[in-house]
């Protein structure tokens, strides 16, 4: 670590634009930041990485004035500052762009850029001047050709909205731009657009701080990388001096010897437990496939290809209208998830916050809901399980290593990773024999990812059938015993284990349909 610190010392003849000294922040039960000191220089892209709960977001929120640190100083241009509100930070030249945008979707770009400080003439908003000024701002960062000031925000793509957020920051004459996972929702080409813009902002002398889980991107954009772990500073390194493996090692504090557990062997696979034939609903069509006991069946496909819709159809959220769904040899129609769960199907949804957790309920009640919802409505409960099995909560809590002082705590007070574990516990408790995972590791740190992969494979080994939807091709390839590829709201075909990324992408973009002569018709549809 010493050589890395030397690098920073070398640079210290240049004064940092923004500096934090010994920042500490505590939340109930968590030391979110512990004595963190960092310098950010102008004209530099500085990435902050770390596992979930490492303190990245807390640090950014302190810089942006959304949180006040318990102790420590913030220095802007060498002068001590303190912000009691994000707008104060913004006026002093520190802008933050969150994962969720703060734009008004039904207003124009110009309105959004100048929200709250619209130019006025005789007490009325001077729309013409506002549009002109907005045009100037967009031009300044070279995106006036892409985005018109009069465009309505909701008509823009996610990437374009992000650019508007940046333009808004520019209009505040920001010196420091903080981006929290700016690329999480972007497609590949959109990421390029953002990269170019960041490079341009850099040459203007801005200090850019960004948080990301995608290491590839961090290496592509950032000059300097800071690693946080458990609220502590692990170190700051120059990007050119490290490789991804070393960085991951800094993040998790251990060698990453394996990413994926070994695939299943032929003897692991049993009979077909779930079978779909020619099934359609209003969202997806012509779905046919089999899922066998003991296998992990991966589902790949681009955004909007119908992956999640497939899961929802199987689970009875948006049931199939035509075709047949056979579970354990029995033709089934699930009108709602209740029936799917009764047939021992589990569905770990993609969006933990809106579809997984009950934030104001205790951990124990979160874990037991799937059991309770399919039992006799007026039947009595036990706080740790059922009247028969009174150890479900502690057993699963230990098994999944849910870290909490008490299972009576509300889930909202847990870290993201622990919340995800609670959701998994809820489905393990349901004792499902068929599991659907939708993006099981999205937005999760490397270490937790590996443990979730192990868990999924472990379930399969115990004879559970698993359908795993993922937009990360390495995950699909690393985990799946077979791979289904979706495109254009239907199944394009099936690939064997260890298929290459190219094969999958080719199919996912609608170029090939195995065992079907209608190769070109699929392209035509797109």
């Amino acid at each position: 670590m010493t050589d890395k610190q030397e690098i920073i010392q070398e640079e210290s003849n240049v004064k940092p634009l923004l500096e934090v000294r010994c920042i500490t922040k505590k939340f109930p039960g968590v030391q979110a930041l512990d004595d963190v000191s960092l310098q950010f220089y102008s004209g530099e892209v500085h990435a902050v990485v770390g596992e979930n709960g490492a303190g990245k977001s807390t640090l950014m929120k302190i810089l942006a004035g959304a949180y006040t640190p318990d102790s420590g100083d913030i220095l802007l241009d060498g002068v001590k500052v303190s912000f009691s509100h994000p707008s104060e930070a913004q006026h002093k030249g520190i802008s933050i762009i969150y994962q969720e945008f703060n734009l008004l979707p039904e207003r124009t770009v110009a309105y959004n850029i100048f929200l709250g400080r619209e130019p006025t003439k005789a007490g009325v908003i001077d729309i013409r001047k506002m549009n002109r000024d907005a045009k100037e701002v967009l031009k300044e960062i070279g995106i006036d050709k892409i985005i018109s000031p009069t465009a309505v925000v909701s008509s823009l793509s996610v990437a374009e909205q992000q650019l508007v957020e940046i333009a808004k920051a520019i209009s505040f004459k920001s010196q420091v731009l903080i981006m929290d996972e700016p690329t999480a929702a972007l497609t590949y080409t959109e990421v390029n657009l953002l990269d170019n813009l960041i490079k341009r902002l850099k040459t203007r002398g801005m200090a850019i701080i960004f948080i990301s889980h995608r290491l590839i991107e961090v290496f592509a954009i950032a000059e300097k990388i800071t690693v946080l772990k458990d609220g502590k500073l692990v170190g700051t390194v120059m990007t050119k001096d490290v490789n991804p493996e070393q960085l991951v090692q800094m993040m998790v504090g251990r060698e990453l010897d394996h990413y994926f557990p070994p695939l299943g062997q032929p003897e692991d696979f049993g009979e077909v437990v779930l079978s779909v034939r020619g099934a359609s609903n209003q969202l997806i069509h012509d779905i046919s496939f089999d899922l066998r006991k003991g296998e992990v069946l991966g589902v790949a496909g681009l955004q909007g290809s119908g992956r999640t819709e497939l899961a929802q159809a199987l689970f009875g959220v948006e049931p199939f209208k035509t075709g047949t769904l056979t579970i354990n040899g029995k033709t089934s129609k699930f009108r709602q998830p209740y029936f799917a769960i009764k047939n021992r199907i589990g569905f770990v949804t993609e969006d933990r916050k809106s579809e997984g957790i009950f934030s104001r309920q205790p951990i124990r009640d979160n874990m037991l809901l799937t059991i309770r919802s399919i039992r006799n409505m007026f039947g009595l409960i036990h706080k740790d399980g059922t009247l028969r099995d009174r150890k479900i909560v502690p057993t699963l809590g230990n098994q999944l290593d849910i870290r909490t002082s008490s299972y009576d705590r509300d889930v909202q007070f847990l870290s993201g990773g622990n919340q995800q574990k609670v959701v998994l516990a809820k489905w393990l408790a349901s004792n499902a024999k068929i599991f659907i995972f939708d993006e099981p590791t999205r937005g999760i740190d490397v270490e937790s990812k590996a443990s979730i992969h192990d868990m999924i494979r472990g379930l399969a080994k115990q004879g559970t059938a698993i359908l795993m939807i993922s937009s990360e091709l390495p995950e699909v390839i690393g985990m799946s015993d077979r791979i289904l590829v979706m495109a254009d709201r239907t199944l394009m075909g099936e690939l064997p284990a260890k298929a290459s990324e190219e094969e999958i992408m080719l199919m996912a973009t609608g170029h090939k349909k195995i065992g079907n002569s209608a190769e070109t018709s699929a392209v035509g549809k797109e």
Partner: protein
Amino acid sequence: MTTTTASSAKEINQILGKIWNGVRRIPPVFPIFLLIFIILGFLNPKGYQTMNGIMTFFRPAAPLAVLAIGEMLVLAMGGFDLSIGAIVTMVVLASSKLLANDPEKALPAILIMIGIGILIGLINGLVVSFLKVPSFITTLGMMLLVRGATLYYIGGAPQGYLTDNWRQFGRNYIQDVPFFVKIPYALIVLLVLGLIFYILFHRTNYGKQVLAIGDNMRAAQLSGVRVKLIRVVTHILCSVLAVLGGILVGGYGGVNVTIGEGMEMQAIAACVIGGVLLGGGKGNVINVAFGAFTLQAIVNLLNQLGLPKPYTDVIQGSIIIFVVAYSALSSQRKR
């Protein structure tokens, strides 16, 4: 010797810490109730420091608690039920016409009222679940509907009297009870209903599903909760409790067309004082019952101070706003 004293001092510290932790967890409704009751006791020792007076206090407080428990179920589910005041009015007015001064008809009248209550709750629940009308609007409409239908049925003005056997639940006391001196039937009814609904809400699959819906409806559905069914059942339970509460109210109140007016707001206020989160996800039967007692005590306090009814309305409205704001602020601080 010294070590033992040191360790025992440490033990005492630990015990004190535990006690303090326990004290901190006491819901604010209990100290508030106690405080107001003590103030009342100073102002009117005879009314609030004797068993006789306390039991008299519980006669009107118990019906409010019954209504509040029903309302709590709906609030905890993330809904509202504004029709319960109109149901109280209906129970009193329609029963008085149905009875036609014949004590023999008391039981059928009560059963008919419960039946109508089930029907009202069923309609509320079905409209909310299947027509996707927000419960606030649905039950507001139901409030007008029930009120109008009641007035139509009785022909615009109260008819007849409520017979004594119908009124006994809300009016009479068990006399000559050792220590308690007398116990209002209403309090017994509340204790029985309170126990049933405590178990139902805190100790059954149903109660946990109500909270799950109130916390995150989408996640509840995806966890197998039959959201529509639970909502219908909850609205029915709320309406039935409103009917039972109405029978108790009719016991001590007179037969007039405004008897149940504003009771939905009183019930909501009682829930809020009892720590129920508007928007759903939190609720406790005992706290809500004490929320109702507290509200009744506040009303009595204002009466004691000689303030007329309009003042109590103003205070009640202020309480709802203040308590909701307070709980919103304190939950923000926790984050």
